[in-house]
């Protein structure tokens, strides 16, 4: 059984999805497929936790990474 989450690239950064996938590698298998408009994450082989919880937490992590990276990019541009 797997969860499939589609991240719109106008809202989420590809680098953020990749960083979150790397961070969650020890909890589940996450395969990413990117197109110009979206990044699709397929989450499977979830260990230890409830699959839906991991999917939700993974989404939050991607959003957090996106916001942090955007802020850093803004600071870099200003500095």
């Amino acid at each position, binding site marked *: 059984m797997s969860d499939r989450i589609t991240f719109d690239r106008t*809202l989420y950064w590809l680098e953020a999805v990749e960083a979150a996938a790397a961070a969650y590698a020890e909890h589940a298998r996450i395969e990413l497929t990117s197109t110009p408009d979206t990044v699709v994450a397929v989450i499977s082989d979830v260990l230890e936790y409830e699959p839906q919880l991991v999917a939700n937490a993974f989404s939050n992590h991607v959003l*957090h990474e996106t916001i942090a990276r955007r802020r850093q990019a803004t600071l870099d541009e200003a500095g």
Partner: protein
Amino acid sequence: MAAQEGTQESRLGFSLGTDHISFDLDETVYSIEALYGASYLFLEKCFIYLSRPTAGTVTVRLTSREAISPADLDNLAGEFANELLSQVARLRLSQATARIREYYTAAALRAAASAPSVDDLLAELEAEELLEDPLEIMVPWEEKHGAKENETEPK
């Protein structure tokens, strides 16, 4: 902000699911920066997922971390919406006052650059001839007025 079709509508007009609540945002009213600002503050409280059903619209879905009542989900979305408005107002104020802040920062930096350093002030003090005493403040009273005092002494 609008509830999605085909779902139960909450008291505040959001789309209510079993463990989540969602609503659409018009990007011309709520900018992405404001949405990120509010989302960042709510990442600890709930799970947030953003999607874009159409250009110019963002759907926000908030999922509770634990089982909560529909009323609590409604409150969560209401708090998020309030924070969103606060972020929009803050961003607009920040943009409106950006030039004033730039001016004051530049003025402060100019003043700091032209202000003398502590070393300069110490050197200036050393250069001054502090031992000059044109008003003769350091001269004892007796030396200056000794004769007069002797005359007024009681006999």
